[in-house]
């Protein structure tokens, strides 16, 4: 294990770090005028980094050859898969941001730089092979994210969101650190492979507490019930492109990290944590669905929808095998596509002054005034509800298939029954858009980028997406296998 090999493996992280620092320098000298240039360069850096990580996925990189710095970081197919998702969704957040932030006068050069650093931290989270690497990645992502949440400085809601996110995030980090220290104390190591090996002989009560606290900290990061309370407020208050960033790349990072820890470090202790995951999954599905029903603001609704979706993803984790992990990754891809499409559509909902329309009641009759946009929103909603033949169904199908194949019939039964509750509020949006009389509140014009992102993602989640299912299944299987090989 020589240094040059390790440094080669983390080339994407190096690229992003250096790009971020250079952009910071440009920002320091260029000022606000340079923000457009910096945005473009940041998108280029993120897309370039995803090209850098792609070979590991295509070649099916796994095993000890791809562990850098003595197992601190795994540059295998799993992290490559997650990083591509993270980088591309971060880039898409950057693409849609200027139109939104310019109006608020908040399009500052720090924005793309912070996104780059947050994406870098996210990438480190999903490739962590050690509690310390995990924590560094997590904090790198979080610190950037706190600032981003309050980026619209003149908006009270944004400031509130940033503060809430920071206080609760710090608390969660504390809980996580406490769990990590317990784990370290009872196993004597911070490396995932070491933890796994030392727990092989049996789980002591102290180590069990470690698992529980780590899980609690992670549940906060993925906004799973009962640690979900911050999500609606932060999603509502943060500027919409930032919310989009949290809901997509932040989600992938947190879920990927959770998979790394639970299936890696505690992979042999499934019986100890499975019941927690089962509870968290079902509770997230139900609370997310019920919470969403009463919402009047589309961003809050999307927040509850993300809680709901995390519940479904965790069902794959409860299965705790390659098939389950693969299903989670597949679901994540679809969830990202649906969320990107949903937020892109949301950003296109503007009144004649260019202000965002966030109140659901104001979308009424959108299908009459904006048929294309209405169709896209309907596709997103039905897909989120998991109604076939839209592609979103397939994600739910796979996680439940994993649960059934792992002999967890009761979980699958309850989860599916609860998904019907979720269908209700998605239907409500469709109802407002299609059935109600036009309110004609949405008038604003939109640029080509929003439309392009919306069209591409909608085609992906439409039934045409199934044509890609074979290819995607191959990739998720590779990534999931790599995850289990990473010890």
């Amino acid at each position, binding site marked *: 294990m020589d240094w040059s090999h390790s440094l080669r493996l983390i080339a994407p992280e190096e690229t992003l770090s250096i790009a971020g620092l250079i952009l910071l320098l440009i920002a320091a000298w260029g000022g606000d005028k340079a923000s457009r240039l910096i945005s473009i360069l940041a998108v280029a850096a993120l897309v370039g980094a995803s090209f850098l990580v792609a070979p590991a996925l295509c070649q099916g990189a796994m095993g000890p050859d791809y562990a850098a710095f003595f197992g601190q970081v795994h540059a295998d197919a799993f992290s490559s898969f997650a990083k591509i998702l993270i980088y591309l969704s971060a880039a898409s957040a950057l693409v849609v941001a200027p139109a939104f932030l310019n109006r608020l006068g908040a399009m500052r050069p720090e924005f793309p730089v912070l996104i780059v650093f947050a994406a870098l931290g996210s990438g480190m989270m999903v490739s962590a092979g050690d509690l310390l690497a995990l924590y560094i990645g997590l904090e790198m992502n979080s610190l950037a994210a706190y600032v981003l949440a309050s980026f619209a400085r003149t908006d009270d809601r944004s400031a509130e969101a940033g503060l809430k996110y920071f206080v609760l995030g710090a608390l969660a980090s504390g809980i996580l650190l406490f769990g990590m220290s317990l784990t370290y104390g009872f196993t004597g190591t911070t490396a995932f492979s070491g933890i796994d090996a030392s727990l092989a002989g049996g789980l002591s009560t102290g180590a069990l507490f470690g698992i529980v606290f780590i899980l609690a900290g992670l549940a906060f990061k993925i906004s799973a019930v009962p640690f979900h309370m911050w999500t609606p407020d932060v999603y509502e208050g943060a500027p919409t492109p930032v919310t989009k960033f949290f809901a997509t790349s932040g989600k992938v990072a947190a879920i990927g990290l959770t998979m790394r820890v639970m299936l890696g470090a505690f992979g042999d202790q499934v019986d100890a944590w499975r019941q927690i995951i089962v509870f968290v999954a079902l509770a997230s599905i139900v609370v997310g669905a019920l919470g969403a029903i009463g919402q009047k603001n589309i961003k809050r609704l999307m927040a509850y929808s993300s809680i709901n979706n995390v519940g479904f993803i965790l069902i794959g984790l409860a299965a705790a095998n390659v098939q389950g992990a693969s299903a989670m990754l597949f679901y994540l891809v679809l969830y990202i596509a649906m969320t990107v499409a949903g937020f892109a559509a949301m950003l296109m909902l503007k009144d004649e002054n260019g202000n965002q329309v966030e109140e659901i009641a104001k979308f009424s009759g959108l299908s009459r005034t904006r048929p294309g946009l209405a169709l896209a929103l309907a596709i997103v909603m039905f897909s989120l509800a998991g*109604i076939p033949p839209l592609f979103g*169904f397939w994600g739910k*199908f796979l996680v*439940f298939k994993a649960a059934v*194949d792992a002999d967890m019939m009761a979980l699958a039964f309850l989860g599916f029954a609860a998904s*019907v509750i979720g269908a209700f509020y998605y239907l409500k949006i469709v109802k407002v858009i299609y059935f109600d009389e036009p309110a004609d509140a949405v008038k604003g014009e939109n640029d080509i980028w929003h439309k392009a992102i919306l069209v591409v993602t909608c085609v992906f989640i439409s039934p045409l997406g199934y044509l890609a*299912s074979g290819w995607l299944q191959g990739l998720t299987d590779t990534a999931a296998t790599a995850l289990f090989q990473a010890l």
Partner: protein
Amino acid sequence: MSGFPILSLMLAVPLAAALACLFLEAKAARTVALLATLADLALGVVLWANFDIGGPQWQFTERLEIFSGFSWALGIDGIALLLIMLSVFLMPICIGASRSIEKRVGEYMAAFLAVETLMLGVFMAQDIFLFYMFFEAGLIPMYLIIGIWGGADRIYASYKFFLYTLLGSVLMLVAMLWMVNTAGTNDIPTLMAYDFPPSAQNWLWLAFFASFAVKMPMWPVHTWLPAAHVQAPTAGSVILAGVLLKMGGYGFIRFSLPMFPEASVYFAPLVWGLSMAAVVITSLIALVQSDMKKLIAYSSVAHMAIVTIGLFAFNVQGLEGSMLVMLSHGLVSGALFLCVGVIYDRLHTREIDRYGGLAINMPRYALFFLLFTMASIGLPGTSGFVGEFLSLGGIYQVSTWAALICTTGIILGAAYMLYLYRRVVFGEQKNADAAAMPDLDGRELAMVVPLALAALWMGIYPESFIAPMRADIAALDARLARAKPQGDSAPTPGKVKPAHTDDSAHGGSH
């Protein structure tokens, strides 16, 4: 025709037309939709003509492995063929019945063509997950049809329709996942021959039952149907009653019965009980309705109960009978909804009391309405008779009580249908506006005449419809043979007296 993907083509035609309709203005959309449905009807005729009766069980099979997890596998047997024919036959009529739709015609036609694609897909699918997708996807266009073009209470009806059926279906999906995991295949024909352990069958049967009973709909989960029917536009009601309800029956005949024979027999008393309750209760409810569409909707529930009772008779007679009831009900209730639609278009009310004496100003209408009323009652010579007679004959061999109670459905059916007919068509002309309504025009005649001819054909020469499915029903009967229940009415062979018995013994036996 071998090798030519005619089934895929039948799915592609309405789908392509649906996409085109989204971008067309009203008049062009109507034309495109009509042409597409007629083209599909023509393809259906070709399909029937090329169907080899007595040939292999599954014909026109196609299989493409283009997805992960499931495959594009299509194929039909005689049972599916008949239901496909029913669908493609009703669709052009539905498009014709949509003249009164004036808002958002392009989207309306697109939704209808999407429904056609998905319905046909349900009957054609040979992969269990492909089947589920088609089965479930039909919810989206029907939700939009009821919600956008429905009546006053359409929002409530659309939610009820969607959530009821969705809840039923997701439970079925869990069962499907388990079955595929256990049997190791998605292929429906293989699964139909797979013997699941009897202990698991009960659970699986219940999960499928949750879905099909809602779709069917069986009492007491039928409450979405009157709401959806009353609020849907005429064509929506026709397609709902004509074809969508048949998906439940098709599900029983394709999945529940052949895949879980033991469980089907175990739960047969439940089905009989619900069917008996449905026949009596919904018929009585139909008797007191003042809204024509609601009346016909409740009568649909009663007829569907005859279907389930025939299916769970576990013999050839009952199975063939329930298939015929489904086909006949598809034609007749579709036609009855059209008849309601015709006068609704003129007076914009479905209140029975607002009409009366229509025989005077609408004689042709009265004639056709009478024919369909009689077919609904099950008068010999019309399509309704054959199926109901066979179904009830089938159940008589298994359960006398069920046969007795379900037969009252025929009497009650006659009561509410004749009562409806009397109030609408005979009697005095109470209202001037109803008395001034013009008789059927050419377009309306073009819709009801084919339905009337089909109903008579099925009543007079049902062999045309029984022949394609005979082998499949026989195969299903053979599959059920091992679990068949003992009939309570099985006649015991009497003692045959030898010819030369002495007089005293002979006299004693009298």
